[in-house]
Every structure is written in C-alpha cells, then in structure tokens.
C-alpha cells in the first residue's frame, strides 16, 4: 500500500547519503521529493507543509551537524515525525457496557457493512464476544440482505426490522441483545454525506437513545484531500471515538492515515486488508511507520501466522521434517495451513526489504495451491505415504481424478522428492543454507 511512498523516501534519503554535512541547500531537493511523495499519497496539504518544515528544522539542527552519518539521522527524523503524525500509541477499543455498543458510520461505499462483519468476527475470536449485528441501513436497496448474508457466513445473528425507522430498530435491537445474552452489538448504519443534515440528525438521535461506547467512522483509504472535510463533518455532528481505514490492500498510498489523527485527534483503530471476512487488522502506528520507511513488518506476519496455524499440527509436522519422514499427507496438511494465511502476496509485502527484492508486486495465483491440493487428494492413502509406488498408470489415474495432466503430477512428485532430499540432508546435518 505504501510502496511508492517508500520508494520516493528511499530516493530522497539516498541523495543525502552522498553528503558529509547537511546544509539547507543540499537537503532542499530531498525535502521537495518528500513533499511531492506525500502529496501524491493524498496526505493533507497542510500536514505536508507542517511535516516538511519540521523535518527541515530538525535536520538543520545541531545534533545532525555533529553526526557522522547525516543520512541516517535524516531517516530517524523522518521516522519520528511520521510517528508524531500517526500518534505514538495503539488506540484501544472501548468495550465497556453490557452489551458494549459499537456504531459504524460513514459515506456511501466506504465499506461499513463488510467492516461490521469483519469487526464482529475479530472481536468474537480475540475477545470471546457473542456479537449481534443490527441492520440500521434502511435506505440502500438490499443493504439488509447484504448484512444477513455476512451474518450467515459468520454464524452471527442479525437483528432487522426491514426498512422501518432506524432509531427504533436500534433500540429494539439493543433490547433483543440484552434478552439473548449478546454482550456486543455492532450497528450498521446507512451511508450518508456529512453535509446531509437530515440524515446526520438520524445518527444523533441513535446516539442519544443508546449511547454507543464506540462511534467509528469508516473511511475508504483511497480518499483524497476531501478526507479532512469528511472527518470533521462527522466529528462535529457526533464525537467520533475512532476511524477504520478500509481497502488498504489496494495500491492506494493511504495518505489519509498520516493526516487523520493529526488534524482531527481521532485515532485510527483498524485497517481493512482484504476482501475476506478475516481481513481486518489492528492499526499499529509503529508498524505503519516501519512499512512506510521500508523496514518491513515481521511482527504482523508472526501474529497472522499464530492466529491461523494449528500449533499441534505444526509441531507434529516439524518433528517429521526433522526425522526426514514427511510424506505427502503432511504436505497436504501444510498446504491447507498456508491457505489459511490468506493471500500470500500480502505477507510477502511485509517482509523487510520486500520492495528491493521485487516481492511487492508478485502475484500468486491461489489456483496453484488448489491444483496441488487436488492432485494429492486424488491419491490413495497408500500413495501419499509412499509416493515411490506411483508409476505410469497410477499417474494417469491421479491426473484424471484431479483434472490435471500427467506432467502436473510429475512436477509435484519431483518437487516433493527434492524436498525430501533436503530434509534428509538437514537430518544428517549436511545442509548448508544458501545464505
């Protein structure tokens, strides 16, 4: 998401690397690049101005002059200033009250309904909540249907009263939650313009009646300079407790992340990172800065892996690998685990130096995995335990069964054989890692 911003900042810093001392003259080019990069990333123009001024002042300060490596100091100043913009702390979610009430609001098409689903899913998983969704978008055709479909996919109850009065739907929904032991309520509201007084009044009325602990503005990360008007517009009508930036998995640079908190004081709480219902991450300013500056984000990868990988299964496979005894059965289990991690390209992007290695623009076809899965699934148990017995006629059968070709089966078997060889070498301690 921040790739090209990263690239431009790296460029700007590398310019400075050539200099022994930082002077106003030799950093003005780098600062101009930083400025353009931020503007192209849709960072608010006022913020950009303030940011570049601050960086300039600090870069010309005494400490930098004394330093032997001005470029590194410059980078550190950038990092600190970015952190200042994003806010230093991870914003916590207010889950007090029984039920705790979270209301999502925003412009049309920002992703409220999908985010309700993702947030309910996340809080059920991480906080053990028993969520209820309230369908209070009574205007957009089929909005209620959409929420119900998502509720069904997640097995989360949706309270709805069709297209009647939104305020009373919410009131009744909360009552329903109390009666049915739901300790968390997520309210999906209709998309509206912040300048639509009538519809803004509806939100105020809902707030008066049920007083949500969290009122979160859902913002499309592709938003441009209008972001500030939108956030202020909503925040003036009813005080926001946070924002969620959606569609951060696009190629938008998401500059709104850099201006939202700074200009309005409203913290970013989550970011949407995929179309799937588990595609919502806590927003972490430190990690975001690392990502912008190209230092990678290993912590996010580890957390992601921890949340989806079955530890027991992973341990047993690891033991088999160590013993050099992994078979195709285990390989299949591994494939399934990897698939749970979501799109692999998203993970690769988080690796330190991903851009330099060209990993940021890789696309991995999920069908490749499905193909491997299909081939292995078409083998008998015996064949999976002992792939050596797979000869021509078995290969033909497996290919037909999995809708692939004999070449595909051969390819998989060859790759597996290579893997086994490597595992044996590991076991014997002969493996020299290539790095």
């Amino acid at each position: 998401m921040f790739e090209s911003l990263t690239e431009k900042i790296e460029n700007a810093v590398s310019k400075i690397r050539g200099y022994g001392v930082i002077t106003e003259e030799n950093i003005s080019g780098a600062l101009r690049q930083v400025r353009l990069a931020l503007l192209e990333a849709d960072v608010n123009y006022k913020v950009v101005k303030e940011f570049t001024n601050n960086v300039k002042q600090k870069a010309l300060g005494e400490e930098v002059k004394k330093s032997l490596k001005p470029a590194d100091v410059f980078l550190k100043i950038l990092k600190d200033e970015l952190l200042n913009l994003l806010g230093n702390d991870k914003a916590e979610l207010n889950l007090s009250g029984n039920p705790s009430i979270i209301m999502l609001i925003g412009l049309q098409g920002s992703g409220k309904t999908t985010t309700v689903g993702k947030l309910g899913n996340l809080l059920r998983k991480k906080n053990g909540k028993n969520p209820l969704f309230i369908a209070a978008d009574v205007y957009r055709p089929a909005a209620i249907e959409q929420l119900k479909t998502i509720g069904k996919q997640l097995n989360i109850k949706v309270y709805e009263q069709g297209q009647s009065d939104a305020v009373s739907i919410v009131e009744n929904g909360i009552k329903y939650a109390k009666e049915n032991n739901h300790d968390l309520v997520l309210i999906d509201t209709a998309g509206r313009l912040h300048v639509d007084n009538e519809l803004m009044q509806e939100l105020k009325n809902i707030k008066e009646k049920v007083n949500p602990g969290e009122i979160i503005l859902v913002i499309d990360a592709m938003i441009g300079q209008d972001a500030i008007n939108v956030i202020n517009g909503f925040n003036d009508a009813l005080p926001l407790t946070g924002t969620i930036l959606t569609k951060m998995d696009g190629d938008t640079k998401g500059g709104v992340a850099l201006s939202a908190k700074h200009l309005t004081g409203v913290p970013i709480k989550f970011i949407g990172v995929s179309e799937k219902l588990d595609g919502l991450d806590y927003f972490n300013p430190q990690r975001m800065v690392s990502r912008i500056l190209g230092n990678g984000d290993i912590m996010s990868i580890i957390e992601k892996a921890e949340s989806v990988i079955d530890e027991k299964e992973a341990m047993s496979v690891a033991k088999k690998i160590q013993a050099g005894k992994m078979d195709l059965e285990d390989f299949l289990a591994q494939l399934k685990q990897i698939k749970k991690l979501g799109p692999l390209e998203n993970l690769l992007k988080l690796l330190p130096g991903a851009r330099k290695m060209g990993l940021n623009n890789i696309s991995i076809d999920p069908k490749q995995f499905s193909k491997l899965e299909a081939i292995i699934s078409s083998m008998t148990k015996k064949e999976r335990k002992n792939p050596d017995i797979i000869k021509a006629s078995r290969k033909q059968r497996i290919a037909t069964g999995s809708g692939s070709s004999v070449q595909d089966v051969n390819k998989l078997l060859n790759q597996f054989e290579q893997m086994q060889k490597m595992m044996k070498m590991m076991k014997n301690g002969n493996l020299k890692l290539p790095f």
Partner: protein
Amino acid sequence: MGIFSKIKGAFKKEDKSVLTYEKGLSKTRKGFVDKLANLSKEYSEINDNYFEELEELLINADIGVSTVMDFMDKLQLRVTKENITDPAMLTEIIVDELFIIYVNDQILTNKINYNKDGVTVILFVGVNGVGKTTTIAKLASKFKEEGKKVLLVAADTFRAGAVEQLDAWSKKIGCKLVSDTNTSDPASVVYKGLTKALEDKFDVVLIDTAGRLQNKVNLMKELEKINNVAQKIIPGSPHETFLVVDATTGQNGISQAKAFKEITNLSGIILTKLDGTAKGGIVLAIKQEVDVPVRYIGLGEKQEDLQVFDIEKYIYGLFKDMM
C-alpha cells in the same frame, strides 16, 4: 475572448441541467471558489506566495500532483510572458488553462456509442463502493424513459447482497434482470444475459460487475474473461465500458484509470457522489495522463441527478460565484 467569458455568456439563459449542476456542486464550489476569490483579493500583486497558495488550492481539489505541477509551470511562464501583475486577471487565465488541460484540442463527444445492428452492451467497472449498481439503476431508467428495452445483468457474484440490490432496482424501474445465484463465475452470468438479450431483442444491456481493487491480478483477469465472453456472443461489444469513480477519490484515481484501461476498452468515467464536499479534480489528471474523458456525473441520489458531463458546465459550476 477567453473561454471563461464564453462560458459566462453561454449560460445566461435558464437551463434546467445547469441548475442541477449548480445545486449539486454548491457544496463543492464553496471552499474552492471562495478561496480562489480570496486569493485574488488578498494579493495585490502576483508573487511566489501567491503561486504557492494557488498550488495548494489546486492540490486541495484533488487535481493530480503532476498535473498541478505542469499547470503551475505553464501559468508562471504565461505570467512572465504576458507581463500579468493583477491577480484578478489571472483568475480568468486559470479557468482557461484548466479547460485546455481537459480538452487538449480533442473533439469530445458524450453520445452513447449505440450498436446500429442490434443490442448495445455497456459494461460497468470500478473499485469497491464507488456506486456502480446505483449508477446503473439511474442510467437504466434514463434509457427506459427514452423508450428503450433495457436488460440488467447482475455479474457481481462476489459481494453479499449485490444481486438483491440490482434486483430491487430492476423491479423499481420496471426492467428485466438476468442473474444466477448458482454460479460464482461472472462470465457465465454475462453469457446467459447476452444470449437472452439477443433472443428477446433488447436494445440496451447494462452489466454490473463486482468492485475490484485494480492491483488484484486475478480479479482483473476475471474482467478480461467477461470481455472475451461478451465479444464472442456480440462481436464488437461491449460498446461502452464505464469506469465508475467516487468523487472523494484522491491520486489513486489515476492508477485506477490506468489499470482498468489496460484490461478493458475503457470509453469513459462516471464521476459519482459529487454532491458532497469533494471536488473530483482527479478527473482532470485522469484526462491528461490516461486520456479517458468523463461521460456522466452523479450529483445526488435521484435519477435525474445523473447528468451528462459537460466540461464547460462543470467549470462553470465550480467557478460560478466568481463571474
């Protein structure tokens, strides 16, 4: 005579569509024009600070960064060459130059490219949440008013509730809908829809597709497949491919236009949600950098709020208070 005064003259008469533009853009205009007007008042002479503030003003309207930089260079050159010192005079030149950026000596038409030999197919593409489905509904009822036999094809097989949304609209408008909830393959819904359109002799087919972020290779490939299927069933189709863009979109709009143009035969932009405070200036950059013109703009929730785009009216709407 500058284009500015030409526009001014052209819209003296009461024109309903001009009024809609004005009304829809009133929120947009406030701010942008006020600031531009202030700028000319604030500065008695044109200097570096003036240019810096002007640059910020244009950036703030989401006109693309490099478009603005080009524009500023041009303007500064013109100021020196023509020895302009009065900011009030410059306002007219600014409008002039913005117009030139967009038009770029081309002849732009906003007429739908109808298929003379039968069914006209219009494909709608875009990222998530820009208003594709709602726009289709508005256009469908426009076509229907013109007496055309309209078919809607629900090829968004991904988003929950998408088919239901289009279905609700088709009932409201009173036109037929083709959908297939048993498949997740949009190309097969398109196949079904276009086959029906040929059989039952529909005039216009509007195809709704799932929102997709332009960097998702697999989803973009899916769009390619839809295109291929359409071409196979009705050669030369789709006759129009519209990229729907949300007016709040920032610099990413350029990337969207580029990516969708690579995969489809993009023939225009539909700029939605212009009734908020967003200025949608990115369309100027899209026109300049990717050469895709705006065809319609959405100025409100009602069907008549979808208007044929007219650059003169658009600029007039933005600058009305200054004339």
